[in-house]
């Protein structure tokens, strides 16, 4: 095993000038540094997207409020959605995949290190373009500057007739460019997982995190491509006289919806499957048990990957598809609930009979299970097309997908942060601050998103900058906004904990959690070459075998 690293002289000595260090980060092709760049980039945008959400919630705190104008509000929700999906969730997921996959499969780097760096900088440039629109996109009089077409940018609102100026172009180019970056990273992940595994690691002995990210990366290749194609078509419409989506010249608005949602729905799974991956590593370690039903977990993930490709039009139950198409998408959408349910049961079975240790990562993991359960059940409600005719485009659906994305994906990402922080930084985070973060965020999350369902049931549509009194929405909106304050403070505690622990945290050692996968066999942080000797493994839990030579896993698998 590769526990002993080769003692090389450390190249990054303390007296290195800042410019050199910066140069090192900008030109790096090391998967660990790129992973950290992705993650830091995502945290910065998380704060920006959070500020946008906070401004929107202040505007909605009472009826007929005048905190921001409708124009500003529309830009805020467009930026908030685009930022959180493309420049927070995606880079966060890619960052962890980049950092962890080579370490967990016993490789020295990703398959294509330069492509890796190129993909990151493409995505970084995409995010920069989106926000540069605030300065650069000033169009005709009254055209505004930041994009204001909504994050799914339905045609024909994006046509030049309705969206004068260049804000929509910045939006389009931003997603086009970051989309190329995503595809590059996805190709890299697929190749790495398929070709770079250490000796002994057959596909059936890979950590679940590698499996799930393999499925995620395949999905990115398949679904980001149509989105990218649609962005090119939109640019052709806007500048080359095309009529794909230009309804005034016979184009089809529904065509854009199909293009967008064939990306947009699988995208949810692109983001949540890595969160599943974190759960599948964290829950076993803190329950002190092997994952329950490994083959079924892999199978269920692949099933989700396939079925989620055929559910997109459940976002379009109200566009007049007719009973046949509606019925098909009801069935496929409900069907995707089955493999997802299997996963939840398998995690519960993993905890069952274990000795559960409630460290911060496990607290977030348990909250994930609870919240993802509810998110899945409201998803079943929405999959029932007639119910959806009432619920879609209302605050109920906003609450539902925030339950998935915040309650599921972001809680999963927080769990991953605390779990792998010792590995990435070499130091332990502060457990007390971690718990403060957990409880503040949990309370804030439930105040905001539990109560957000109710105005939706009472007929409040999404994307409205104001509403009249007397609709029965006032109290709920007040509670929702109050919850934001808790989440904001929780997030500040989180960021403070990351920074403070980096300088003042206790040294973590290689294996603070007494865990079982290969990343814990090397030093924290790992050396540039990851492993002095490429490890050889015999089971899914190589460090378990090492720690229990009398009772190794490979005898049972």
């Amino acid at each position, binding site marked *: 095993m590769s526990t002993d690293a080769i003692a090389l002289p450390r190249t990054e000595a303390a007296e290195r000038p800042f410019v050199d260090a910066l140069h090192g980060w900008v030109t790096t092709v090391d998967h660990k540094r790129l992973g950290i760049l992705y993650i830091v980039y995502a945290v910065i945008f998380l704060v920006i997207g959070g500020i946008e959400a906070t401004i929107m919630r202040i505007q909605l705190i009472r009826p007929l409020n005048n905190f921001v*104008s*409708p124009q500003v509000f*529309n830009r805020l929700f467009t930026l908030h959605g685009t930022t959180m999906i493309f420049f927070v969730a995606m880079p966060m997921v890619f960052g962890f995949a980049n950092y962890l996959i080579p370490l967990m499969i016993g490789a020295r780097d990703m398959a294509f290190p330069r492509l890796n760096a190129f993909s990151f900088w493409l995505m970084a440039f995409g995010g920069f373009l989106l926000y540069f629109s605030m300065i650069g996109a000033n169009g005709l009089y009254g055209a505004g500057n930041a994009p204001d077409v909504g994050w799914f940018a*339905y045609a024909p*609102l994006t046509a030049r007739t*309705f969206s004068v100026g260049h804000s929509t172009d910045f939006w389009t180019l931003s997603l086009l460019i970051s989309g190329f970056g995503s595809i590059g990273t996805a190709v890299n992940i697929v190749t790495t997982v398929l070709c770079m595994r250490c000796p002994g690691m057959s596909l059936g002995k890979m950590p679940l995190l590698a499996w799930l990210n393999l499925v995620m990366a395949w999905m990115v290749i398949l679904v980001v491509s149509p989105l990218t194609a649609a962005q090119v078509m939109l640019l052709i419409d806007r500048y080359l006289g095309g009529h794909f989506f230009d*309804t*005034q010249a016979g184009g089809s*608005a*529904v065509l854009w919806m199909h293009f967008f949602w064939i990306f947009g729905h699988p995208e949810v799974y692109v983001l949540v499957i890595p969160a599943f991956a974190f759960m599948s590593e964290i829950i076993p370690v803190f329950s002190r*048990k*092997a994952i*329950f*039903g*490994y083959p*079924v977990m892999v199978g269920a993930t692949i099933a989700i990957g396939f079925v989620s490709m055929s559910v997109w039009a459940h976002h379009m139950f109200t*566009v*007049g598809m007719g*009973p046949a198409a509606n*019925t098909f998408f*009801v*069935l496929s959408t*409900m069907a995707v609930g089955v493999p997802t349910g*299997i996963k*939840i049961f398998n995690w*519960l079975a993993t*905890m069952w*009979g274990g*000795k*559960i*240790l*409630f460290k911060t990562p496990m607290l977030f993991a*348990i909250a994930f299970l*609870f919240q993802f*359960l509810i998110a899945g*059940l409201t998803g*079943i409600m929405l*999959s*029932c*097309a*007639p119910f*959806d*005719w*009432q*619920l879609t*485009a*209302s605050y109920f659906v906003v609450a539902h997908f925030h339950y998935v994305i915040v309650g599921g994906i972001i809680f999963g990402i927080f769990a991953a942060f605390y779990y792998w922080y010792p590995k990435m930084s070499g130091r332990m985070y502060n457990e007390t601050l971690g718990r403060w973060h957990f409880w503040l965020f949990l309370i804030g999350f439930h105040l905001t998103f*539990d109560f957000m*369902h*109710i105005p939706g049931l*009472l*007929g409040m*549509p999404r994307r*409205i900058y*104001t509403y009249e009194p*007397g609709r*029965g*929405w006032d109290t709920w909106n007040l509670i929702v906004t109050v919850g934001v304050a808790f989440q904001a403070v929780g997030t500040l505690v989180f960021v403070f904990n990351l920074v403070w622990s980096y300088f003042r945290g206790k040294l973590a050692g290689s294996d603070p959690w007494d865990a079982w996968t290969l990343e814990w066999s090397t030093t924290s942080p790992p050396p540039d070459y990851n492993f002095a000797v490429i490890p050889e493994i015999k089971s899914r839990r190589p460090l378990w075998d090492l720690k*229990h030579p009398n009772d190794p896993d490979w005898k*049972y698998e």
Partner: protein
Amino acid sequence: MRASYIKDSTRSGLCRIFLVVLWSAVAAASEPAAPALSPTNIFAPASTPAKSILGVSYFVLAVTGAIFVVVFTLLVYSVVKFRRRSNDDGREPPQVYGSNQVELAWTVIPVLIVVALFMATARVIVDIQKAAQPANAIEVTAIGHQFWWEYRYPALGVVTANELHVPVSDVDHPTPTFIQLLSADTDHSFWVPRLAGKTDLIPNHPNSTWIDPHETGLFLGQCAQYCGTQHALMLLRVYVQSRADFDRWIEQQRQPAAAANAVSEGQRIFETTACINCHKVAGTVANGRFGPDLTHLMSRDTIAAGAALNTPENLRLWILKPDAIKPGSLMPAMQLNDHDLDALTAYLETLR
């Protein structure tokens, strides 16, 4: 480990509190007196499509509620029961790698649940979307504009804006209203929660919906698909009237515009400014199609698609400075002096 346990029990306590609150909210929302909670409460249907939707919704809520109770109980039980005790011996628990029987069970049971939910759903989809249009149905064409609604009754020769009038429908002898949905510009969505689920208005893509309100009264709703700057104040008002009142309303709407003798100065201003580029007053030179038909403006309770009450002061303000009522609306500020403004308002006040 003691501390962890204490915090953990607080957590499940909190969850229970949330549950209780959520449950009481849902229960409150489904009270029979639900319209009091909100005029747009989906739990207070007053029309067949909304009622069938609520029926299947209750079924789905019951099934998902049962699943929630089962899985949540299992989660709480395993978290509490299998926590590491303070007197833990430090040995690893028995390692279990899986069980085909158990996993098969929790695959098959969800499949059966899905089949049941699907059957119930498919039936309601077909009931609503395949409903045949009876001969006595009222036909309306609703056209979405940025940011107002145009309603045309082709068989009755009536054109109006923003306030849809339909007759009440007796459950035994239904007179439903079938609405064709068109859009003049961007996507919109027609949503009156107590009458029916939403259906989008998409340019180049005609849609339709239908309602058969079982009680008279005013039903509110609003555009539910983001359509541009003033999406928020594109409000919907449906007036459900007795058949006699509805017939009277139709008769009144078919009258030509009131002859404006005393206020002809206002009419002259109206007809010599940009007003007529967008607005129509039947029987005059004003025949614009871009904005609402004003022939019977005074028969409406509201202006600016429900954003303000139809009072002389609001009307005057709307012409002077539309952004004060509805910032971002496509109605331009008319730049008239006080005298002209008064005369114009007075003229509009005669359009009954």
